[in-house]
């Protein structure tokens, strides 16, 4: 790389060295012929390569993202800012966003996961919000070989290591295992913050002469050009990817977060804008701040705090060193800002200023190293309308439902409870501090995590969900289902869904089949969002999740936040006591394609996805929320992977309560994964009122009992399993696979 920096503009053109930086020949010629009308030097081409990467410009996904439904009167800031903002009344708002760190985590699982968490936290506090919760959504290969189990334990340790140290509780997430993620694990982190309206910040640099201040960690050669690395497909030749490894420093970030929030709260009058340095580091934060404000900017790179000697302008601008922020501060008020950061022992340095006009100018060792129109970097990346072609797998699949045959239902249930995707994740999420900040009302282990909002009677419910298998069978409907499942988790916890963020984890968009999946999924997501009134307020795109040509399942992770209006509405999934009535809300059909049962019995998922009706979904959610708000519900748990019987068993496990149930369904349908259902328990006192409310939308199944037994009389047979035995299998499965020591 060092060698390349000496390339002259002409040599750069002739050797096409820009390709190594991820720019195509067409993009290069766009720069030379239309944007600059001259040959760019190496530093300038570096700026473009970072800013025009998928990670920063969304050049491949923009046409898809445009289809998202982003409206809603509650939205204060939608996609485009660092994170989205939704009003929750009383002068407060909730801020959230998710970020993928898939590629870095594949290369260095602990630090990759940790820096993913660190990055998303900066997105939240740069909006002026106090981060109050973290979630993580993970996908791995089957936890069978040492390499995969090592990856899992390191990723989980990295997530915990960062969140625990900085002091933000990790209160939820989801985790699933399929062979397609073997070489391409997904590591998505989500952060939720609370914002007082008056603290809302923008990443902008206005006002000629105002100071650009760099704060936080020094810049090193770590993660140089990580943005274009993250946007490139993976292969086994690791050597070239090494520069992307970064080490997180949660201690530094805690100081940085506290100091930035102090400036935001106590020095409001002098702070013009603030932005985190994420992908494409200094160039992206500074160019975006200037472009957004319609300003020009000039930076003196000699002033940038540097960890290493003799860094080039290219390296300084494209380094993705962590734990750094950029502030725009009123001219003359620099000292006031320095004083705050000094108190926290942090570097804060004026490195440039807002200029008239629209040029972006970098000086290094007294030389003008780059001089380009700022909008060209920030907003004028080419946008590609990629070709979409319906993948063959969708046309080849059988149209009938898989028909499982179960010789022994209770044995099947026991086996199912030990499947890694179904099994309890407690041994993993227990390594996350879920209580720090002392606001956690519902810890991981129920449908959604819940955080109370101090000084109010309100709380926030949050969850992450997506079932890649469904999208693999039908990307559009699977996208709808992902949103619906997230909403079910919020509603079952007593919350009204407010909006979503997402991480679109897909394969290479230049392959028409992969682009089709992305496009279809986005349309499904959008439709469900509109129907459930949960606008998309932020998100992130991670493409090229392929290794050696094999793509992952289309996996658009959905992160959803809901508002619980009164603390008394907080509901968990555990049955609370014996002699409560048990219901299933929604109807059950013989839906087995894509199910956990199908995978367990056949080793794969296949066939056309079953029907899904968003109207019925919305209606069931509405009724449950109404019942919860009327105080009628003792427990509620949505039905997802593993079907009705898995859901019932999980509700039994919390407090070791049994059930005695009778159903008109055949036994096998207790494993079906029909959508839009909840298992609800209701005390005898509320039984009549609850039945009057749900009318024929739910079915009475029986009662909870003080025994240690799950008893089920189905239409064709009786089966039973001891609760304690089932729970032991369910809780023991992952520790055993991961060989965790007690």
């Amino acid at each position, binding site marked *: 790389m060092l060698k390349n920096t000496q390339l002259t503009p002409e040599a750069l053109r002739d050797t096409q060295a820009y390709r190594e930086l991820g720019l195509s020949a067409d993009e290069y010629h766009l720069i030379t012929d239309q944007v600059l009308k001259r040959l760019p030097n190496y530093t300038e081409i570096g700026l473009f390569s970072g800013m025009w990467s998928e990670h920063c410009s969304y050049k491949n996904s923009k046409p898809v993202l445009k289809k998202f439904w982003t409206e809603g009167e509650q939205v204060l800031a939608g996609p485009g800012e660092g994170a989205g903002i939704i009003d929750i009344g009383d002068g407060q708002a909730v801020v959230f966003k998710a970020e993928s760190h898939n590629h870095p985590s594949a290369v260095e699982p602990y630090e990759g996961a940790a820096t993913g968490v660190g990055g998303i936290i900066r997105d939240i506090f740069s909006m002026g919000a106090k981060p109050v919760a973290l979630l993580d959504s993970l996908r791995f290969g089957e936890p069978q070989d040492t390499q995969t189990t090592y990856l899992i334990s390191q990723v989980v*340790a990295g997530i*915990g*290591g960062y969140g*625990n*140290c*900085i*002091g933000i509780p990790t209160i939820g997430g989801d985790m699933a295992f399929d062979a397609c993620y073997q070489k391409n694990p997904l590591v998505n982190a989500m952060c939720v913050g609370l914002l007082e309206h008056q603290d809302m910040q923008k990443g902008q640099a206005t006002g000629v002469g105002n100071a650009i201040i760099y704060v936080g960690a020094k810049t090193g050669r770590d993660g140089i050009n990580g943005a274009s690395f993250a946007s490139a497909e993976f292969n086994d030749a690791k050597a070239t990817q090494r520069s992307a490894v970064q080490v997180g*420093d*949660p*201690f*530094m970030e*805690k*100081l940085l977060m506290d100091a930035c929030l102090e400036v935001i709260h106590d020095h409001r009058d002098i702070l013009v804008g603030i932005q985190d340095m994420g992908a494409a580091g200094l160039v992206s934060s500074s160019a975006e701040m200037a472009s957004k404000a319609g300003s020009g900017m000039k930076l003196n790179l000699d002033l940038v705090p540097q960890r290493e000697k003799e860094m080039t302008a290219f390296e300084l601008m494209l380094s993705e060193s962590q734990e750094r922020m950029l502030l725009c501060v009123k001219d003359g008020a620099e000292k006031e800002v320095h004083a705050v950061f000094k108190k*926290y*022992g942090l570097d804060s340095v004026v490195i440039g200023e807002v200029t008239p006009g629209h040029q972006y100018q970098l000086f290094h060792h007294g030389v003008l190293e780059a001089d380009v129109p700022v909008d060209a970097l920030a907003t004028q990346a080419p946008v590609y309308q990629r070709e979409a072609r319906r993948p063959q797998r969708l046309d080849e699949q059988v149209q009938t439902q898989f028909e499982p045959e179960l010789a022994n239902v209770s044995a099947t249930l026991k086996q199912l409870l030990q499947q890694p995707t179904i099994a309890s994740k407690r041994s993993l999420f*227990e*390594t*996350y*501090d*879920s*209580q*720090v*900040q*002392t*606001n*956690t*009302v519902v810890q991981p282990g129920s449908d959604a995590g819940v955080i*109370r909002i*101090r000084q109010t009677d309100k709380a926030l419910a949050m969850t992450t969900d997506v079932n890649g298998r469904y999208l693999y069978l039908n990307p559009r409907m699977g996208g709808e289902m992902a949103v619906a499942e997230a909403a079910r988790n919020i509603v079952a916890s007593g919350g009204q869904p407010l909006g979503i963020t997402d991480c679109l984890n897909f394969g290479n968009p230049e392959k028409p089949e992969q682009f089709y999946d992305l496009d279809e999924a986005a349309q499904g997501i959008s439709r469900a969002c509109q129907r459930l009134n949960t606008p998309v307020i932020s998100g992130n795109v991670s493409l090229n999740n392929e290794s050696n040509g094999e793509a992952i399942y289309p996996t658009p992770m959905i992160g959803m936040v809901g508002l619980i209006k009164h*603390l008394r509405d907080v509901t968990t999934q555990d049955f609370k006591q014996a002699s409560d009535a048990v219901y299933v809300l929604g109807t059950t059909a013989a839906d087995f394609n894509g199910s956990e049962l199908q995978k367990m019995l056949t080793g794969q998922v296949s066939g056309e996805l079953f029907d899904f009706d968003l109207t019925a979904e919305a209606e069931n959610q509405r009724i449950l929320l109404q019942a919860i708000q009327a105080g009628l519900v003792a427990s509620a748990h949505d039905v997802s992977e593993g079907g009705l019987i898995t859901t019932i068993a999980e509700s039994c496990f919390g407090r070791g309560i049994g059930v005695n149930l009778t159903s008109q369904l055949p036994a096998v349908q207790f494993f079906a994964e029909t959508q839009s259902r909840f298992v609800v328990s209701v005390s005898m006192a509320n039984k009549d009122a609850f039945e009057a409310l749900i009318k024929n939308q739910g079915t009475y199944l029986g009662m909870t009992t003080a025994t240690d037994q799950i008893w089920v009389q189905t239409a064709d047979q009786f089966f039973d399993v001891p609760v304690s035995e089932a729970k032991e299998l369910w809780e023991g499965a992952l520790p055993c696979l991961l060989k*965790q*020591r*007690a």
Partner: protein
Amino acid sequence: MKVAIPVFPGSNCDEDLYHALWDILQITADLLPVTVTNLSQYDAVILPGGFSYGDYLRSGAIARFTPIMAAVKDFASTGKPVVGICNGFQILTEAGLLPGALRANQSSRFICQNSELQVTNNQTIFSTAYQPQEHIKLPIAHGEGNYYCDLTTLAELRAQKQIVFEYVDNPNGSVGNIAGIVNRRGNVLGMMPHPERAVEVLLGGTDGLGVFTSLLANNQREDVHA
């Protein structure tokens, strides 16, 4: 009673403690930076949990050298009460105010869970609100809470009734199931579990209140400072 809460760079349970004291117990408390050197106006000091200086060397190892820790040592030497919770406990052992050390958990993983404790000694100024041998539940959240001391020290801790809390199901490998101890004089308590996280029914229980109410009750008794 007026409580000092030293805030080390990297502390992250300081505000939780502050809220527990002010909002739940109506106890006056101040958050103090590490530069503070005089604690004479306080009746008690409570070191909060977190990751002081990132816990990058050993937990508590760097924090021990801050100016405020010199003041805490003086404060303790006058017989006034000092409590260290989680990272606070780690700092107190590193500073030599309590015997032993805290190692990485046996599982070598961080653990956050509710753990059952036995109040082994309810006769300390930090535990009179509990019944003898009472079983209580307090959250733990630590990666290095595995208490270590040699056998001689353990025998002494037992003989002098310095063990205040013991785990019922030892979650981290601690010697003697130790979750919390006092110094010989009885005025310095270190404990890995988080009493400040167990002061509200909404958040899962109130078994932690006893530590603070004991402190409060005994603060008003003239004899404890004697």
